[in-house]
């Protein structure tokens, strides 16, 4: 018989694998064409020119590292919190672009034609990633996890 604890562990593992796969894919894809990714960041018209390329250089390795950290039980917590932080960043940038009436290719998961429906879809994906990562993080904090487990008993 599978206990509630091990069922929760499987759920955390499954969500971690899913989020990790998305982040590693997104990171590797951005590494292939940093110039195009820099153009995508510039299209948001949020960052000054000084910071655009730095973000284009740093974000792909950061996403890949997040994905890899989610795979290890001891590193999962840091990976999940990093995904939470970066998802908030993506969500804010995308929402602000939508509110300002911009139509752009966010460069989130590979290059594509600028499209508002796609931006809305990516906003939903971001929200899902944020929720998944927050779930993993909260389940990975020992004290919090133990408290939840004791209330469920």
């Amino acid at each position, binding site marked *: 018989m599978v206990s509630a604890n091990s069922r929760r562990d499987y759920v955390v593992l499954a969500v971690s694998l899913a989020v990790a796969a998305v982040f590693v894919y997104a990171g590797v894809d951005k590494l292939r064409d940093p110039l195009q990714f820099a153009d995508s960041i510039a299209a948001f018209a949020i960052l000054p020119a000084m910071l655009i390329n730095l973000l284009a*250089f740093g974000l792909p390795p950061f996403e890949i*590292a997040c994905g890899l950290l989610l795979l290890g039980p001891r590193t999962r917590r840091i990976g999940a919190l990093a995904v939470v932080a970066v998802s908030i960043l993506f969500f804010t940038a995308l929402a602000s672009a939508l509110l300002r009436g911009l139509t752009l290719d966010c460069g989130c998961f590979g290059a594509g034609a600028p499209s508002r429906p796609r931006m809305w879809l990516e906003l939903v994906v971001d929200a899902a990633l944020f929720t998944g990562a927050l779930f993993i993080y909260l389940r990975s904090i020992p004290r919090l996890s133990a408290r939840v487990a004791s209330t469920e008993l």
Partner: protein
Amino acid sequence: MRLPHERSLGSQILRDLIGVAVLAIASLAAGLTTNHFSSAPLPVVYQTPEQRFDAELTTLVATPPFAIAPAPTVGLDQFRTAIDGKSTLILDARPSAFFEVGHVPGAMNLARDNFAADYRRLGTVLQNAHDKPIIVYCAGGDCHDSRLVANALLTLGFSNVSVFTGGWEAWSGAGLPTNTGSKP
């Protein structure tokens, strides 16, 4: 009861946030290193596609004279015939100040020293002249501007570009009509 080795929730989250910050710094360092050793490294400060195009165009006309490809040349008679035929695009490669003082009637200013900006300003005219004959001239004598501009146009895919080697010196010296101002 909390055990002595247990940390408060706040300090756990703070520790994790420091871990995320370290991860961000390490990722930026990795990204900068990867870019540095890549085959086409990007500058640290972002350049818009327009700025990149301008830089590329400027590079095209900055070729040292010894590296200039021998573009076809025309003499004064051929140049006059081309102007009379009105089917050839005439380009003046001298700086705009000289162009305004005097230029060949119908010529447009595509200055070597302001090539990128002039190229974009003449965008539609040049697009329509991709396969049409184009003759470029400059001051005449030993001037290289017309050759540099002609070479840049050939590199950009214009198929029928030649140089009037006599240039402004030969044209004005022959007492032929001239125009002044920024208009052709």
